[in-house]
């Protein structure tokens, strides 16, 4: 128990050490303020941006875009992935195209989206949609493929209708993978929007960082960067919380079974991020 508790703090040692060093160098005045402002200055800039409402307004713009584009990607990506998982031939037909598109980073498409959709919200939503779509589709498809064959045989032997197969087998059976895809998609969305706002936007956290750069306000750039990082962590934590809340039965099948033989076989769990 002690080891576990200590384990949770281990990850904080490095950032706290870095912060301490930053404080010490900032306090002694050995930092070049044009390159690296002191923590105090960054905090002042943070307070100013908060009081002024600028930070909240930029953050709000980014979040609205992210959730809008992500919701679209989820609405399209989950059903598409489930269909692809259910139809084995789809991998043969669409696999190479998907693989190609996955190699093209969303930022590379920003100029094209600007050309197609003009300036405004549409190209940003398109970037987020593109960034989130592939992890969602790929994981949903894999989730279906990972449903053990014996359960498909059960559904056939019980003559389940396509609707019942979807409701009782495909959706719950792939749920863990679908959520992993949504989580990855959300992370990709956040990263993509910041990049998009840096290149083509008049609001958002990415825009805040770029404006600070053009005004040589390194302290505000730091505020923006730190906010991007912390928001990413918060969004990821929120998705994990939702996942843990909505996938209880998936998690519970991994629990220990009674000692007698012949219980049910637990299916594979969703992959870790490293695995993907």
């Amino acid at each position, binding site marked *: 128990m002690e080891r576990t508790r200590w384990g949770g703090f281990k990850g904080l040692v490095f950032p706290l050490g870095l912060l301490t060093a930053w404080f010490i160098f900032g306090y002694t005045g050995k930092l070049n303020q044009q390159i690296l402002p002191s923590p105090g200055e960054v905090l002042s800039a943070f307070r100013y941006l908060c009081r002024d409402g600028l930070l909240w307004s930029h953050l709000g713009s980014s979040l609205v875009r992210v959730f809008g584009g992500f919701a679209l990607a989820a609405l399209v990506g989950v059903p598409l992935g489930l269909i692809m998982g259910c139809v084995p031939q789809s991998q043969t037909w669409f696999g190479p195209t998907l693989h190609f598109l996955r190699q093209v980073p969303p930022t590379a498409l920003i100029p094209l989206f600007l050309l197609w959709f003009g300036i405004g919200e549409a190209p940003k939503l398109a970037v987020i949609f593109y960034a989130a779509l592939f992890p969602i589709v790929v994981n949903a498809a894999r989730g279906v493929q990972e449903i053990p064959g014996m359960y498909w045989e059960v559904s056939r032997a019980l003559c389940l209708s396509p609707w019942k197969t979807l409701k009782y087998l495909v959706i719950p*059976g792939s749920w863990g993978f679908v959520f992993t895809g949504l989580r990855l998609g959300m992370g990709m969305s956040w990263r993509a929007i910041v990049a998009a706002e840096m290149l083509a936007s008049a609001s958002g956290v990415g825009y805040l960082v770029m404006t600070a750069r053009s005004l040589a306000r390194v302290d505000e750039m730091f505020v923006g960067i730190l906010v991007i990082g912390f928001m990413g962590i918060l969004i990821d934590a929120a998705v994990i919380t939702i996942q843990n809340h909505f996938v209880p039965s998936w998690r519970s099948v991994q629990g220990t079974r009674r000692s*007698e033989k*012949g*219980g049910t076989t637990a299916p594979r769990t969703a992959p870790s991020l490293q695995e993907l």
Partner: protein
Amino acid sequence: MEQPLLELRQVSKNYKLEDSKQELEVLTNINFMVQRGEFVSIVGPSGCGKSTLLSIIVGLIAPNDGECLYKGEVVKKPSLERGLVFQEPRLLPWLTVKDNIGLAGEYDEGLLKKMDLEDFSHAFPHELSGGMASRVALARALAPRPDLLLLDEPLATLDQNLRSKLQGELQRIWKDEGVTCILVTHDLNEALALGTRLIVLGKRPGTILHDTSLQDSMEKEAMKEQVLTWMEG
């Protein structure tokens, strides 16, 4: 003569091996009929095609040669009239006992009671013991009220005590529900204890070595040695 419930005519089944172009002959020239109300036990050594035979009867796979007739019609796909209990319970882990049983048929409280599962209707499969999981699998196959119940070594993974108990339950279900049963097993004692008829399959490719009705326990006991010799031969 009354139309048999099930009839297999010269059924053969081959599987293509994935790595080569060779074919593996699993069943060859299987012929038998099953009348309503029978409890047919099919025994044979491991790998002789017993489970394949059940899959053909259910309609999960098609034979390469011959035909399988159910109520005079060729079996082309699974039907709720033929219930299958797999070797492992294969309960969907994300559904409760109640939902697993109600997957194909009407959820029946009485069935749950008969199977002694009424206290576990909201339990998930991982919360069940092996015996309970087997009973739920049996209840799931019985829920659509099939005329023919196919049992693919459903007790093979259980320990001896639990096995004897569930054998008793199987016999009770066969008598009470009036369902025709085909049990596939490699356990001769189980086959003799439950069946009213015994079909012995030989080593792969499975062919019928012997098909006999079983009358009383004396006769069953006397057959044991003979059947073992057939199976080993």
